[in-house]
């Protein structure tokens, strides 16, 4: 455990270190990569609450990622065209302000997670995996054929949204902002894990019957976890859209949901920093391997397979596990 804490600190500091070194060497693209890794990590940290602590294998978290993205895309596009968004009952002004967009993204994805969770949590196991996948596919196909915001072509936002006091167009400042968000969320997630709620959720995962005998409702615990989890992934979606200055239905695809799971398992399931390690490693592999060969996905597949089969507990598990023997 001691060793894992050291490892976590190192990993966590590696991201800003890469960004700062990149700044010194004038390699802005490395900062972009680090930002991408941090945002994907944030999305997977969200999923990790449901999956790692709650045992809810959701293959539909791309719904929340996509909703966060479109919250940004729709608000910013209305601000860009100066045409307010008319929802019938009330009218919303578009905005280019990140805090407002973030709140909207969190609210919309939490609402969606509440509705999906109410229905999906009636099932368990493989059926839960598949019903979340079904919701993901619904959103995906709806967005492809819905012409108002670009359909499959997606929606371009030409200038990154603004945050008070920062120039978000500068890669390092945007990275700093994303990293700060990730740090705050990790801090909150750490608190949640150790809180009575987190402990109860863990109990409900390991032994639902025992949780019920002490008066806990596994359904409600899981629903709350699913909503928080969806909200965090939604926030990551809004940031991801701002990184690319572009949103499209691929944010809703099942491959996206699959990748979040890959990050968690790659890093080490049920560990606070697992998704961070997994996402960083995945972005790094993607970047390095794609230059090696036209058939680089074969190598990526082989590495994933190796980790699943032989490095149980993911990368953190493998490293920290060895430490346990020494100490």
């Amino acid at each position, binding site marked *: 455990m001691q060793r894992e804490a050291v490892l976590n600190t190192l990993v966590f500091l590696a991201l800003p270190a890469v960004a700062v070194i990149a700044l010194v060497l004038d*390699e*802005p*693209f*490395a900062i*972009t*990569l680090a930002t*991408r890794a941090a945002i994907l990590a944030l999305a997977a940290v969200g999923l990790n609450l449901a999956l790692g602590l709650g045992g809810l294998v959701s293959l539909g978290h791309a719904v929340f990622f996509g909703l966060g993205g479109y919250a940004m895309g729709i608000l910013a596009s209305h601000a860009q065209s100066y045409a307010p968004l008319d929802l019938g009952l009330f009218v919303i002004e578009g905005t280019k302000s990140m805090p407002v967009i973030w709140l909207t993204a969190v609210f919309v994805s939490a609402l969606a997670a509440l509705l999906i969770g109410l229905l999906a949590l009636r099932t368990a196991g493989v059926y839960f995996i598949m019903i979340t996948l079904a919701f993901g596919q619904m959103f995906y*196909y709806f967005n*492809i*054929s819905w*012409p108002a915001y*670009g*359909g*499959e*072509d*997606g929606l*371009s936002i*030409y200038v990154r949204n603004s945050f008070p006091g920062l120039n978000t167009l500068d*890669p390092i400042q945007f990275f700093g902002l994303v990293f700060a968000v990730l740090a705050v969320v990790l801090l909150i997630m750490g608190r949640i894990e150790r809180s009575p709620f987190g402990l109860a959720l863990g109990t409900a995962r390991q032994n639902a019957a025992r949780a019920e005998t002490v008066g806990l409702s596994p359904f409600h615990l899981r629903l709350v976890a699913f909503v928080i989890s969806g909200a965090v992934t939604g926030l990551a979606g809004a940031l*991801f859209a701002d990184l*690319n*200055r*572009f949103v*499209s239905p*691929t*944010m809703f695809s099942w491959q996206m949901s699959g990748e979040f799971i890959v990050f968690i398992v790659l890093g080490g399931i049920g560990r606070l920093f697992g998704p961070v390690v997994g996402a960083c490693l995945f972005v790094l592999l993607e970047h390095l391997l*794609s*230059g090696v060969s*036209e*058939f*680089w*996905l074969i190598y990526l597949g082989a590495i994933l397979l190796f980790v699943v089969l032989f490095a149980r507990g993911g990368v953190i598990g493998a490293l920290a596990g060895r430490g346990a023997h020494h100490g």
Partner: protein
Amino acid sequence: MTFKQLLAATCVAALGAGAQADGVKVGMITTLSGGGAGLGIDVRDGFLLAVKGNDDIELVIEDDQRKPDIAVQLADKMIQSEKVDVMTGIIWSNLAMAVVPAATAQGKFYLSPNAGPSALAGKGCHQNYFNVSWQNDAFSEAAGTALSGEAGKVFLMAPNYPAGQDIMAGFKRTFQGEIAAEVYTKLGQTDYAAEIAQMRASDADQIYFFLPGGMGISFMKQYAGSGVDKPVSGPAFSFDQGILGAIGDAAVGAKNTAHWSKDLDVPGNADFVEAFQAEYGRLPSIYAAQGFDTGLLLASAAAKADVDDADAFRAALKEADFQSVRGKFSFGANNHPVQDIYMREVIKEGDLVTNRIVGTAATDHSDPYAADCKL
């Protein structure tokens, strides 16, 4: 092997160019892995053939996996880290919409070797964006004109996504006659039994459809087995060399519109077909021809102007002073092509299923969005 040799040649050329300091650095983002890789590989190979041995051009190639977010990330890499002057290579409209506006806004040139979403031709046009392929509606507008003369009602079918709706809109814009029905299918649909039954039951005299790639292969094979004998036509994307082999005899007789064909009798085209076949061991497709023309255009501009002088380089591109394998080629006011579009027919040459030109569908065709473009 041949690709590696070419790449090596390009790298050697790149070293030479570095010494001269007036070379053009080109970033190509295209689809090289996964299901849609055939198109990207054709564009890349055509482009490489055109710039083979050219010392002025240094090339960086990356695979976008057909994912918009990866394409955006690669574009950032090309611009921030590789510091390229010109970008090219994107196959799909949705990826182009994700990359092109940001690239041109940062002062880079973008040459589109495939795809021309209407937004980039009209209000979103840019002085640094040159489309060397077609505006999305072009082939179907030409088909609409060409089919207007022939009597009869037309049954329209396309996948339900923006490019499908654009192409059908293009057809309806120029078609003088009656539309029997208009059907939109799921993107990626593989079984068309239900739609074919509707075609059989409708009073349409012919079918006009847009189903790119695998969707078109599935539809044509199933249509041939259904016994419905209404003539079919569509834009070239469902009848191109890369997929005709997979459709086989079922495609013979189908009409399709394109700006190029391997039997097009213009200077240089026969040489291009022969060289492409010799280099890669397969026949070129329209995508290969577009990649080749993009390479030629770039080489022509690089020979005339220094890319660091953006205005001069832009003017050199705009002249389009190269011998296109399509024959006549020039840029309209919105930097989109003005070109002839031909009607082709799928035929069998011995064992080979391929296209031949049967007529001209539109002469000096340009797109209708130019009016919205303030260049």
